[in-house]
């Protein structure tokens, strides 16, 4: 379940090649962070996985099946997305939005079943949103809104959860809350979590696999401790950092004073 296999993934915008021959495998129980400088191809990579961008056949496989061959509905029951911007301008309630996560499961003529509502309730509980369930989405804070979108993705009961910079615009308390939540869910639900992150320390702290992209190619792939080294960061980001160790094996990246 949640086995993703990628062979020679390419993508070009016009004449510019943005992804170059990316090949990699993911297994479940993995919390994967995708990092790299702006323009290194992170978002493109993720959009290919989500089939938002057109895809060649025999490039990406989910559970040994070419993802191009899945129907939209079917794929939506396996892969869920939490996009970067939640530009919702209509005042649906939290519950209504999370319920939309059940779309790929709901039969048109039967409508939502009690099972669907049960799942929604469970997901609201897991994301600590039950007290807010009848509130209008537009009245929520940034952190709360993000949790709602995550809850909606979880309502899809996916095998793979893909997030694009989910904590960028949140304050530190919410950043931590959300990363902890995702980590916990990835373990409890045994789903593959792939998230794009800018903050390398969060990658170190929470994920167990890190993919470092540079210019559309995989520069390094492995455990974050092994990938996010002083040398790699210098090569890819052109920044000199210090890596501090604490708590026996926990690492922290800091910018030097000079």
């Amino acid at each position: 379940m949640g086995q993703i296999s990628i062979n020679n993934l390419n993508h070009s915008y016009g004449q510019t090649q943005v992804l170059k021959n990316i090949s990699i495998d993911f297994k479940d129980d993995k919390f994967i962070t995708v990092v790299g400088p702006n323009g290194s191809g992170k978002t493109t990579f993720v959009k290919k996985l989500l089939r938002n961008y057109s895809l060649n056949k025999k490039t990406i496989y989910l559970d040994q099946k070419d993802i191009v061959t899945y129907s939209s509905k079917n794929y939506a029951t396996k892969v869920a997305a939490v996009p970067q911007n939640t530009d919702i301008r209509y005042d649906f309630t939290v519950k209504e939005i999370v319920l939309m996560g059940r779309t790929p499961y709901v039969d048109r003529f039967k409508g939502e079943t009690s099972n669907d509502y049960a799942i929604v309730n469970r997901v609201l509980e897991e994301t600590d949103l039950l007290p807010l369930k009848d509130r209008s989405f537009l009245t929520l804070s940034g952190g709360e809104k993000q949790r709602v979108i995550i809850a909606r993705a979880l309502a899809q009961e996916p095998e793979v959860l893909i997030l694009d910079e989910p904590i960028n615009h949140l304050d530190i308390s919410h950043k931590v809350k959300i990363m902890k939540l995702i980590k916990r869910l990835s373990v409890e639900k045994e789903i593959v979590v792939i998230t794009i992150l800018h903050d390398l320390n969060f990658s170190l702290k929470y994920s167990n696999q890190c993919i470092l992209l540079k210019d559309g190619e995989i520069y390094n792939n492995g455990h974050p401790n092994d990938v996010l080294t002083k040398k790699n960061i210098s090569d890819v980001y052109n920044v000199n950092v210090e890596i501090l160790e604490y708590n026996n094996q926990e690492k922290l990246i800091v910018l030097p004073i000079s």
Partner: protein
Amino acid sequence: MITKNNGKIIGLYTVILFVIIIFASTIGVADIRFNDALKIISSRIPFIKQFVNIEQMKTSSILIVLNIRLPRIILAGIVGIALATSGVVFQAIFKNPMADPYILGISSGAAFGATLVIIFGISFSFLGLSMISIGAFLGAMGTTFLVYNIARLNNRTPVITLLLSGIAISFFLSAFINLLMTMNNDQVEKIVFWTMGSVSSASWKSVAISIIPVVSGVSIFVFFSKELNVILMGEETAQNLGIDVETIRKLLLGVASIVSAAVVAVSGIIGFVGLIVPHAMRMIVGPDHKRLFPYTIISGAIFMIIADTISRIALNPTEIPIGVITSLIGAPYFIFLLVKNKKILS
């Protein structure tokens, strides 16, 4: 926001619609007493008609109520339903509450078709439809088709390109119409009158013809209520939730165009209904299309029927084109709603 007792409220609202229809048919320029008009209408209602005797009434009164007033009231209602529900669809698909059914060029296309028919003096009818209606319908559909194809790129139609294409073609057609009017000075009055919108020539035939596309179209809209909700979340999000956005968009825009073109062909260009009724309803009952559609349907009908009634009696015996009334009522009412909801919107 109305959430509880939804069914009961809709039921009550529907009853209000019927009451308004009956009241509207008692109002008019001719000298017919209120009670007499009621009797005439009752003589057509299945159970009640056995209790009503209209034999003593003037033929002209019966003709006026049943053949002149009632068809146009019902046609006005149909037009209101068509434009308001199409407005809901356009606003959802373009994710823009300022969208209305005319942005893909339907109004200028219909006006163009009608202008050509008027200028070439074609005036026979075909299957009970006048050439002007047929010309307007073809003009509207042809224009939508053109706008769509200009914007199309490899089977995808980006929203912005569609909008721009619609605007460009509309401008061009309007200019062309003005040119034709300059060259055919004596027909200008007819052209202007048609474009201002009117249901004054309504007959049971026109009701029968317009009811078919409108009822079918609205049923299709309602059928896709859920999908429209999700599409409001964003195109990519909708795709990621398993919805074939491109196909649904094409289908719904196509149906909405046909529905709008059908009523524009019959009644001319009536503005504001497709813009403010959906918008106002969204403010009152919320964005969920499962609730939005029923309320929009009834509100669209009531709005148009009231507008038509005003257009018939305000400047007795001159009739004000209904398009003028919808704008004159529509704008202030909309401003009132905006002011009332300022806080919520910000």
